[in-house]
């Protein structure tokens, strides 16, 4: 079991009010799975992603990642876990604007202390994998949206993490470009990568082997992508 979440709660305090973003999520994901997380806006999808990605710590509950109890780790250890185990892909790419594609992709390796020569080679390799061999020295503002997201995916792959986490990766792209990105994820899944993908598009979720539906901070459906996504169409 790669991910084991049980009784995960995340409560935000806004002024005197408490906002329950997650109310007790139980979820297990095996290595090699491709899981879509769907649900209405505000249902807690991003919150769950941040907890899984160790960017956020749950208010209550236990979380084992690769057998390690992450909920009890200090800030430095969490940074190291993010660096080694997680590859993030964000809706708005989150590339560093002043750095080239190559430098952006190298970043996780920089923080891992990998030597420059090795870093260059591995980043180059990752860029080739996402089909950007000819854009290595371009800066983000010299790239199209789809190309930027490919750079972001290459950056997530460069560190060879156990888990790829993508929060609405096609949200800022037109449908044709979005389709290319999804094809890329399909390939990565076939190569054995574990992928957790947040989306609000039922069609996209239907293509994933497994989908999890969140509603108001709880898991309300978990099963093959087609079924879970279909319920959403019916609802």
């Amino acid at each position, binding site marked *: 079991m790669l991910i084991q979440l049980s009784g995960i709660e995340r409560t935000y305090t806004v002024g005197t009010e408490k906002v329950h973003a997650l109310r007790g999520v139980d979820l297990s994901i095996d290595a090699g799975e491709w899981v879509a997380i769907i649900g209405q806006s505000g249902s807690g999808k991003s919150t769950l992603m*941040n907890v899984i990605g160790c*960017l*956020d710590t749950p208010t209550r509950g236990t979380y084992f990642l690769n057998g390690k109890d992450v909920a009890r780790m200090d800030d*430095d250890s969490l940074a190291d876990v993010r660096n080694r185990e997680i590859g993030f892909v964000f809706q708005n790419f*989150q590339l*560093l604007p002043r750095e080239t594609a190559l430098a952006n992709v190298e970043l996780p390796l920089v*923080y891992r*202390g990998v030597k420059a020569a090795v870093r260059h080679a591995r980043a180059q390799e990752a860029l080739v994998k996402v089909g950007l061999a000819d854009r290595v020295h371009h800066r983000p503002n010299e790239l199209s949206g789809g190309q930027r997201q490919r750079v972001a995916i290459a*950056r997530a792959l460069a560190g060879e993490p156990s888990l790829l986490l993508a929060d609405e990766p096609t949200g800022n792209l037109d449908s044709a470009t979005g389709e290319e990105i999804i094809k890329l994820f399909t390939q990565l899944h076939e190569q054995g990568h574990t992928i957790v993908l947040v989306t609000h598009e039922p069609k996209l979720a239907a293509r994933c082997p497994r989908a999890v539906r969140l509603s108001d901070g709880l898991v309300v459906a978990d099963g093959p992508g087609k079924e879970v996504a279909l319920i959403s169409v019916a609802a």
Partner: protein
Amino acid sequence: MNARIDILEGSRIALKSLRAHRLRTLLTTVGIGIGVATLLAILGITQGLDTSFAKQLESLGSSTLYIQKSPWVQMGNWWEFRNRKDLTWAHAEGVRRLSTYATAVAPMVSRNEEVKFHDLSMAAVEISGTTSDYLQVTGFEITRGRFFGESDDDSRSTVAVLGMDVVDTLFPHSDPIGAPIRIGDRVYTVVGTLSRKGKILDESQDEIVLIPFHTHQSQFGAQRSIAIGVSVATPDALDAAEDQLVGIMRRLRQTPPDKPDDFAINRPEQLASTYNQLTGALFGVAVGIGFITLLVGGIGIMNIMLVSVRERTREIGVRRALGARKRTIVVQFVLEAMTVSAVGGALGTALGLGGAKLVSLVTPLAATVKPGTVFFGVGFAALVGLVFGIWPAFRAAQLDPVEALRHE
């Protein structure tokens, strides 16, 4: 992750960010630069002052002592000094006879008088009565004519040796040697002129007329206390000579053993310490101003760093998501602050050295800057960057990664 990588990556980011904001960097550095420039210029000028003053003091005689009624730097009851027994010619004679260290002993007695030649005059000139040992004690030389000797003193001759300021004023176009000048109600014949000494602490040493000691006493009376200038072979002998002189003087003046000395032995280096107290205070004020400028510059750095952290909130979120520890973020921003300041320090150092150089060109002060001062300038500026950059850097590291990533 180790510290070496933090620093390497931090410096790379710092340089990149500074290059991306050239104008902003330049403006920020101005504050620090002016602070460092002020400090360096002050240091340079003070160092220069010290050396030029040391040179001036040397012209007073570095191996000379002056036995007088009261000390130059007075502490305590001035009337106690006034009521002391006068020093006399006999004391000078006694010192000459008994001191084994003295190479020259010159009695000196002075008063200010008007000096006239034809229709030219000079008011309040120091008229000193002395002997030919005066030259060795004070370091003056005879440039024209001769000095007066023992026979002039014995016969109370009215002969005079002129300092260069007096020559300049009374003899702008003519040769003073042999000329009759009027001092008070008597006429003196000029027999020689002294070398030029210049100023010490802004007071000219050349506004002087020397006449034989006993001629002075016969004209102005013998009731005033004299000074006895004593020169010794080398500066090293000063302490031993002073000890011996104390003994000789106490014996000559029959000071009871239980009483303190009723005379003072003055040394030019005492002037140096007074001078140091004076310039020390000035220096302190100037350094204070420099530090305030640096403080203002430092606050400028802090301000720009807070802006930089704000602008780059998303970047901080990205770096944290990819595995940067808090410490890594702190190092990154502190290095950025230090780099901006160091650039300011370098500019300020250039400016400060230029300023000191300018001072030494347009004024007689020799502003010298030691090479180490340059490193001090840059290093000190970097330190200011560290101090004022650390708080913004901690704020950056404390940001919540999720919030930072969501920042617009």
